[in-house]
Structures are given as structure tokens and as C-alpha cells.
């Protein structure tokens, strides 16, 4: 029982195994969220494979989960064909990732298992896979958890999700180029240290969350050559977290070119920025294999 968040994949774009990424991990986006007995899986990047192995070992069977997809880029769906629990007949997975009437999402999720790409057909997934949708993007309650979504700036679009129960809340916002939504982007050119006003809709969506898991792929130095690629400066995410007064910020979707040392440098820059902005928000790099419990005090 309790409210848990566990990172199974925190890398952006493509898996990056190897010695230089050992600490933060090389698997792509996958986060497990548990509110008491309710299980949510956010994205199905390559981290989903290991989550599947772990779910098979747990005593709770059958496995019943809501799978919320941010969007259908490879690094968010590629683990799905390797998700062992999806092959077990007793299990049930309800899949969300598009508004009502939008069939593309389910076509793409199953399309990656066409024989040209993968040896096993989607029909071999013997679990009960229920294609659902996000309706008209209004809030809904799933297994007692209030789920809301938010449309983000990303090539092809992407959704952020907010999950809330008993006054505790986590926001998952990946593949989100917040820098392109700034009402006054010139402020960054004029002064890198100046506070960056973030659009109020996103701030209200994140307001007061116990944890904001947010795409923070690029450093200040990397971003200028990647404008329009769909990911923000990590430092801009700090401004969002500070303005929304979230308690903890997990920088997520690390760039495949970043080593563990690079990620630590990026997080150091984010923490300095938060301090300069007068915030005590706890900032860390989302790291594979780490689980947080969010209904306990955050400080000793």
C-alpha cells in the first residue's frame, strides 16, 4: 500500500547501454506508478521489458494495469513487443494515448509488430488488451485515481499526465519543448540567468505536485543547435517547477550523448538555478532502478 513511482527507463531517443551510462541507465522511457493496488505504466520504451520481468515475479496475479502513452515515437513504444505480461491470457492492459476517434495510435502500437519489423504478430499477445482513449481530454477517474492530461509542444504532439489520489500527485511530462512555448523567448537570449515565464496553463497543470517528472534533455550549450527537435533546456524546466511550486523535480529523457558525468553536471546547473530563483525544490536526475514513495516526508 502507498504511492510509489519507479523509473524503468529514463533515456531519451535511443537506448544507450555501456559503462558511461551505468549510473543513470540506458533504457528509454518507462515509469511505473502505483497508488495502493492501482498500477499505471507511463510509456513503453525499452525500460518496459524489465518492468515486465519484475511484474511476472511479483505475487500479484493476474496483472491489471492502465498504460498511458505520451505519444508514439519509437523510444516510447519499443518495449511493448517485449513486455512478457502482455502474452499471459489472464492479464488485462487498458491502453491510452490518443483522443477519442483517433485510430492512429493503436495502429502504430500494433504496426511495430508487423512481420517486416518483428517475428511475433500482435495477435499473439494473449492478454486482454483494451484499446481506450483520452476522450476529449477531460479529467477521469481510473481505479480511484484522478487522471488528467495536457497537450504538449512536440513534433507530432504528445500528452503529459497528472495522476492524483488522497491529496498526492505526480505529473509526467516528457517530450515537451517548453522553450518553444515561452511567451517571451527573447528573455533567454538577453540574459541566461533571468527568470523565464512559463505559460500559465502548464504551470497550473503542474501546480503543487509532489513530483514533476519532466523532459530535461538538453543543457544550455546543447539546446541552440536542437531547436524544434521537441525537447527543452533542463534549466527552463527548473523555472516551470519553481513557478508551479512542485516539491520535487525529476529531470527525465536524458540525451543519448550524455554520460553519467554529463548528467550530473546538468543537474548541478539545474540546482544552482533553483537556488538563484530562491526555491527549495528538490531536483535530481531520473535514474533507472530508483523507486520513490511520495506519501512520506521528503526531508529527514
Amino acid at each position, binding site marked *: 500500500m502507498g504511492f510509489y513511482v519507479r523509473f524503468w527507463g529514463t533515456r531519451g531517443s535511443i537506448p544507450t547501454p555501456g559503462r558511461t551510462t551505468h549510473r543513470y541507465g540506458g533504457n528509454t522511457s518507462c515509469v511505473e506508478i502505483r497508488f495502493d493496488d492501482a498500477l499505471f505504466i507511463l510509456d513503453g520504451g525499452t525500460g518496459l521489458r524489465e518492468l515486465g520481468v519484475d511484474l511476472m515475479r511479483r505475487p500479484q496475479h493476474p496483472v491489471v494495469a492502465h498504460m498511458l502513452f505520451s505519444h508514439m515515437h519509437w523510444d516510447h513504444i519499443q518495449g511493448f513487443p517485449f513486455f512478457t505480461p502482455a502474452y499471459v491470457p489472464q492479464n488485462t492492459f487498458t491502453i491510452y494515448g490518443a483522443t477519442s476517434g483517433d485510430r492512429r495510435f493503436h495502429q502504430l502500437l500494433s504496426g511495430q509488430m508487423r512481420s517486416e519489423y518483428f517475428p511475433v504478430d500482435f495477435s499473439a499477445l494473449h492478454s486482454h488488451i483494451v484499446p481506450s482513449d483520452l476522450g476529449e481530454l477531460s479529467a477521469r477517474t481510473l481505479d480511484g485515481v484522478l487522471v488528467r492530461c495536457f497537450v504538449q509542444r512536440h513534433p507530432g504532439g504528445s500528452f503529459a499526465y497528472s495522476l492524483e489520489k488522497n491529496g498526492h500527485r505526480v505529473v509526467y511530462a516528457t517530450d515537451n519543448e517548453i522553450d518553444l512555448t515561452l511567451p517571451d523567448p527573447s528573455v533567454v537570449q538577453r540574459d541566461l540567468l533571468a527568470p523565464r515565464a512559463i505559460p500559465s496553463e502548464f504551470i497550473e497543470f503542474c501546480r503543487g505536485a509532489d513530483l514533476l517528472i519532466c523532459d530535461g534533455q538538453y543543457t544550455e550549450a546543447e539546446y541552440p543547435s536542437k531547436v524544434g527537435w521537441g525537447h527543452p533546456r533542463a534549466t527552463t524546466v527548473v523555472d516551470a517547477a519553481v513557478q508551479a511550486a512542485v516539491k520535487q523535480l525529476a529531470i527525465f529523457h536524458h540525451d543519448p550523448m550524455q554520460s553519467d558525468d554529463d548528467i550530473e553536471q546538468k543537474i548541478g546547473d539545474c540546482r544552482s538555478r533553483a537556488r538563484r530563483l530562491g526555491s527549495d525544490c528538490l531536483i535530481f536526475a531520473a535514474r533507472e532502478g530508483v*523507486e*520513490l*514513495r511520495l506519501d512520506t516526508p521528503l526531508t529527514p
Partner: protein
Amino acid sequence: MLPSQDDHADHMTEEQLVPLLPVQVYARPHVLQQIRGPLSPQIIELRGDQLIIGRNPDVDIRIPSAALSRHHLRLDKYQGGYRAVDLDSSNGFFLNEIRVSSAALRDGDTIQLGNAVFVYHEGK
């Protein structure tokens, strides 16, 4: 540049039979280096599939401090290293200053349990 063919052409090189001796591999264990709190400094070698840290006399790694729970943290052998799991302790498990409930440990991680602080060193 093409690789030199010298070695192939050189019939003067004497052939040697190198005996394959049994090689003994010394494994270096994973360790916790306690840097703060009662009993520090100390180096604790981690052996076994499961270890409990706490203040109770029956635990594997005992830290005599009221700031620790009786059974505070469990270390499980996991993928060649250890995974640390908070046992619903009162004061929590802080990994690199963030409160977590469990984590696969990595070289250089700082673990704080009450007033005891450890650094985890991966072995080989």
C-alpha cells in the same frame, strides 16, 4: 595504410608452447564505507544474498543509534550488485540526499539512514 605482412613472412620467429596455468581470480566484494554516525569510520564487506541494516541485535549490519529503525534497510543481491530497500523505517532511506524507497545501488552512492552515512563501492 595496409597492415604490414612482416610477421607472416618471418619464418625465423620461434614457436613457443605457453602452458595454460589455472588462473585464480580474486573477486573484490561490494562494500559499504561508513563515513558518519556510530561505529564510523568502518568498511563493511557485503556478502550474501540478503542483508539487513538496523539497530536490532539480530541484524546483519548493526548500527547502535536511536535514529535508525530496528530493521531499517534491506540489501538484496540484484543483477550482480545490490538493491537497497527501505523497510518502512521511521526516518527513511536517503540516496544522494533524496528520499527513496528502493534503488539499485551504483558506485559512489551516498546512503543516509538516520545519523549514519555510508558510501557504496561496487566490487568486481
